[in-house]
């Protein structure tokens, strides 16, 4: 059976640690199946709710699920959705890519060199605490309304969470391990790249996960507030014309996109920081 393979996982989680979990083993897969069933029911009732709301309050308040589906098919078929998705992904990818590289790099510097970290701490805090929207006018004045400006906005939104997470991970690197490496004669470079950075990998990855989520939000905001484009532009255009079925079709794509990104990154976190995950589970 397919579920059997995951059964050995239960060893890592002491029974009762979740408060509600029953005896381990087979029951575990049965319980997972139960969760899926309930989740399916909830999704179904949401769709039914849409239909119901439509019948009570009319098309303007809530489109029927079927019309949303029909619109979605049309928009995919005539290429509108594909093009919008591509535009959004370009902004998101470029902005997040820049934020990830520059954020991890600066985070490593600021976390690894205590002097730099201390010098820049207030500035980082100030920038990170300012709502991102405050910089939109400035970005527009400096970079215009088009793709470059949007990329800058996304970069700015994602850069600080990534930097902060990375720096924190490096600066709190396990002292026991660094001392061990030093006692065997590790130089600064080895200490840094082979002990502190791998030790910080879980926080770097969780910084990237937060950064990706923020980037998605930033992309849509950029597409709404600057020259309308991509999924954000499509969405606001449909909303402004009260084409709610069209609007919902876009929202569903945005939802799926955000979910896929965070699932992908969580998977990466699992993979590269397996030891951390297992240690956390064993606790």
């Amino acid at each position: 059976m397919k579920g059997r393979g995951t059964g050995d996982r239960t060893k890592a989680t002491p029974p009762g640690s979740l408060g509600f979990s029953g005896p381990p083993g087979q029951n575990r897969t049965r319980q997972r199946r139960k969760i899926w069933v309930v989740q399916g029911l909830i999704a179904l009732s949401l769709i039914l709710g849409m239909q119901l709301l439509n019948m009570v309050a009319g098309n303007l308040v809530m489109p029927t699920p079927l019309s949303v589906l029909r619109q979605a098919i049309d928009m995919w078929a005539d290429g509108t959705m594909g093009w919008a998705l591509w535009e959004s992904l370009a902004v998101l990818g470029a902005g997040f890519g820049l934020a990830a590289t520059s954020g991890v790099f600066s985070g490593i510097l600021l976390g690894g060199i205590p002097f730099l970290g201390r010098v820049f701490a207030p500035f980082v805090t100030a920038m990170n605490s300012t709502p991102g929207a405050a910089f939109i006018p400035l970005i527009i004045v400096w970079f215009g309304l088009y793709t470059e400006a949007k990329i800058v906005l996304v970069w700015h939104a994602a850069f600080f969470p990534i930097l902060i997470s990375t720096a924190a991970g490096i600066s709190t690197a396990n002292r026991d391990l660094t001392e061990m490496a030093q006692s065997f004669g590790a130089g600064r470079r080895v200490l840094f790249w082979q002990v502190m950075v791998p030790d910080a990998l879980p926080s770097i990855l969780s910084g990237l996960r937060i950064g990706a989520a923020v980037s998605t939000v930033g992309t849509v905001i950029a597409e709404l507030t600057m020259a309308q484009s991509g999924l954000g532009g499509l969405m606001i255009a449909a909303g402004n014309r009260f084409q709610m079925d069209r609007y919902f079709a876009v929202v569903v794509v945005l939802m799926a996109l955000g979910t896929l990104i965070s699932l992908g990154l969580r998977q990466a976190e699992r993979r590269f920081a397996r030891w951390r995950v297992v240690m956390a589970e064993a606790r």
Partner: protein
Amino acid sequence: MGEAALISLQHVGKSFKEGTLQVLDGISFDVRAGEFVSVVGPSGCGKTTLLRLINGLLAPDQGTVRVKGAAPVPNSDLAMVFQSARLLPWRTVAGNIDFVLALRRLSRKDSAARTMALLGAVGLRDFADAYPHELSGGMQSRVGLARALAVEPQVLLMDEPFAALDAMTRETLRAELLRLWSRRRMAVVFVTHDIDEAILLSQRIILLRPRPGRIEEIVSVDLPEPRWQNDPRGLPAFAQLRGHLWGRIQGMARDGVALEDLARAFPETEGQPRAEG
């Protein structure tokens, strides 16, 4: 002692917190090449600090530390075994040993062969590709020991390496350590809380008193070798040494060292006269 000292400490003092906390004071002793010396003392008397000084991770405030006639630098023929194994969790068992071998600039091929040989020596050949979190505490300690032996040190510095283990594993690892030591004959400085363990393993015992850490007494242990074959614990000489050491500890207590410190320091040696205050 004598002129052939491998490690030589003279009037060593060390303090922390800008000199307000004197941890070690006037520590002088030598360790010859191939000698097994234990350091015993209550918690907080500076045993770990002493090892760090010998390793060169710390520099003394007063006095001198010499290893092979020079101030020690981490790396030069010294290896540490820590109380917790301190393995890199993202590397496999073999990878952890490769890590220190790479620090010693060993070629990859030699390194792989030596890694396997060492894992064999500590009985973990089958676990070369396992990750530390997949090992029991005792197995992790063995990897820590194998890692230290891998660099073929002239000095092995061990900081309560078996304290966190259960009695049975500890017993096995003690025997293993003695066996490896008798084969390789590196000098060992072994920090422990356990007086029986100190007598069982070492040729000399350095007894420290706390606050600040000073040498209370240095005791030679003359028990028949090899001790992993004939357990000396039944011998009258063993009992006598143990009685002597406990006498000194009670003496410390009479001199005003807080009793609970000592009780915590020597917890699991059962059946000896308790210190009465």
